[in-house]
């Protein structure tokens, strides 16, 4: 049996189990964080080795899990998010109890995401999703004394439970229709099921509802702002940058491998949902007063952009989708970590609390500006590069009979223009507005680990924006591996 295909997951899972055990021996919380970071680093190394050696597609056992360019790239994204979140958490959860469990659960959630990326089978995919969901329910409820956190966890748990019930029922129907659960085989058999069209549609709708909850697609988005606001902000960063992306990986696999043969049946619906999602997300973000809620709605809007890759369904479109997932992980993850950083120095999460921030900390104001402008898609930042690829895909991918797809690009561009308003409003608060009378005005002393995490995100956003070719190449290899 070739274990090298699952080294990354294996290493991380072992570290996740080891963290609480290590806590018995060493009480120092910084050591625990360092130990978790080492696990993430080793796991990352295992994935990078795969890319460096160029081993192509490695299959574990009977082929339930693979390590190829697609799963490898997503593992790197998830591991990077976990790395940044743990780095930022060292200070953020300093005064909380049960730190070992916190780090252990973050690692476990990441293992689940990696399993989803590596899965070639609906059952394995479901198990991966559940590992991530169960860990993140507990993480959202991490602050036991926090009323908002408890409420957010309840909502997240109920919506997550409904989502997994729909997913499982849909999967069971697909299994019943085809007698198999491998994406490849489902993809071959689905085209031959003419007598069972209605049941296939039912299965499709069920799975779409299930995954729709996970990626906060309208009309299944209502949990996202509440949970993102109530959860500890570092965990919000993980939810927005990590577990939401896991939902997209699952969608790519299910729709573009499993259901590609009947694409004509679902592409219009998904395209409409994509446009509704981005529009509703952006409009709702316009008049938010809490920055966490604003970023949550902007996250819903970004989910709408990424959904665009599904109905277009070409290799180029998937490249754009993957590229936007990659850049969005840094932009949104960085933005939430920046909010968490400011929370540790007593700056609240209302947008008005950010008044005159530039006078108190140039670094934070500059970082937030870069991250928000990247989310809006202003050149030469990463968000611009990925939006160019993503929004040009409906135009490039147009074949006879699908000219309507151009409207996806139009909707995306109009929405980006709308979104600039609420991002620029935060920047105006930070740079133009004066501090309130009597408000503290001394310069901020930022915790180093958190500042480092924000700095990594900002550098990544600028780096990807200035040199996008290399990253587009990576995403293109991943898209090719998905369709191979």
């Amino acid at each position: 049996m070739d274990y090298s295909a699952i080294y990354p997951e294996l290493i991380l899972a072992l570290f996740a189990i080891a963290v609480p055990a290590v806590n018995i021996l060493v009480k120092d919380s910084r050591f625990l964080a360092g130990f978790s970071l080492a696990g993430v680093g080793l796991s990352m190394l295992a994935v990078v080795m795969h890319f460096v050696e160029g081993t192509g597609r490695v299959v574990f056992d009977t082929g339930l899990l693979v390590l190829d360019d697609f799963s490898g790239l997503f593992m790197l994204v998830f591991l990077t998010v976990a790395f940044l979140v743990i780095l930022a958490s060292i200070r953020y959860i300093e005064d909380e109890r049960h730190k070992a469990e916190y780090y252990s659960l973050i690692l476990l959630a990441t293992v689940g995401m990696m399993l989803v990326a590596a899965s070639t089978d609906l059952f394995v995919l479901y198990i991966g999703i559940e590992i991530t969901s169960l860990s993140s329910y507990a993480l959202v409820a991490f602050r036991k004394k926090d009323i908002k956190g408890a409420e957010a966890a309840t909502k997240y748990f109920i919506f997550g439970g409904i989502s997994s019930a729909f997913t499982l029922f849909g999967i069971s129907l697909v299994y019943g229709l085809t007698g198999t659960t491998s994406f490849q085989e489902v993809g071959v058999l689905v085209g031959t099921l003419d007598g069972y069209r209605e049941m296939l549609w039912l299965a499709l709708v069920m799975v779409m509802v299930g995954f729709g909850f996970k990626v906060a697609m309208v009309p299944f988005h209502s949990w996202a702002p509440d949970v993102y606001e109530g959860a500890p902000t570092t965990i919000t960063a993980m939810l927005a940058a990590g577990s939401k992306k896991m939902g997209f990986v699952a969608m790519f696999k299910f729709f573009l491998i499993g259901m590609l043969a009947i694409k004509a049946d679902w592409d219009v619906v998904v395209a409409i949902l994509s446009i509704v999602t981005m529009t509703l997300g952006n409009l709702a973000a316009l008049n938010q007063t809490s920055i966490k809620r604003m970023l949550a709605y902007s996250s819903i809007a970004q989910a709408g952009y990424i959904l665009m890759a599904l109905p277009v369904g070409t290799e180029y479109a998937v490249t754009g989708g993957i590229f936007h997932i990659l850049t969005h992980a840094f932009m949104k993850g960085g933005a939430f970590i920046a909010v968490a950083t400011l929370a540790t120095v007593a700056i609240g999460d209302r947008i008005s609390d950010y008044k005159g921030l530039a006078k108190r900390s140039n670094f934070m104001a500059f970082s937030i500006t870069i991250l928000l402008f990247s989310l809006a898609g202003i050149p030469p930042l990463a968000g611009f590069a990925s939006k160019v690829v993503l929004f040009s895909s409906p135009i490039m991918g147009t074949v006879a009979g699908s000219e309507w797809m151009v409207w996806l690009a139009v909707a995306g561009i109009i929405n980006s223009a709308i979104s600039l308003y609420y991002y620029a409003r935060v920047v105006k608060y930070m740079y133009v507005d004066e501090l309130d009378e009597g408000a503290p005005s001394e310069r901020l002393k930022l915790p180093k680990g958190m500042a480092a995490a924000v700095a990594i995100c900002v550098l990544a956003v600028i780096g990807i924006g200035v040199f996008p070719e290399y990253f587009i190449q990576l995403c293109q290899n991943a898209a090719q591996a998905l369709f191979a």
Partner: protein
Amino acid sequence: MIPLEFVLIVSSALFAIGAAGVILKKNAIQVLMAIELMLNAANINLVAFSTYFGDAKGQGFALISIGIAAAEVTIGLAILLNLNKLRKTVDVDDINLLRW
């Protein structure tokens, strides 16, 4: 042997009852039970199809999925217990601190 259609009717009815419970019930614990009904409906499907195909994979997965559902209930009850401690209620209409 029971025809496949009968089993599917039972599982669909169970799923529908569960979905109705999720929407209509006010008590979060009852919602949790309704979610369990939905998951069990899917498990019935898996076992039925597995027997129909003579393929053990579906039954094996049904066992795993029962395990996952048990873990889910454990975490869910812990979350609801904590909510009850802080808010003295598990009524889903009362958890309305977070809204726009």
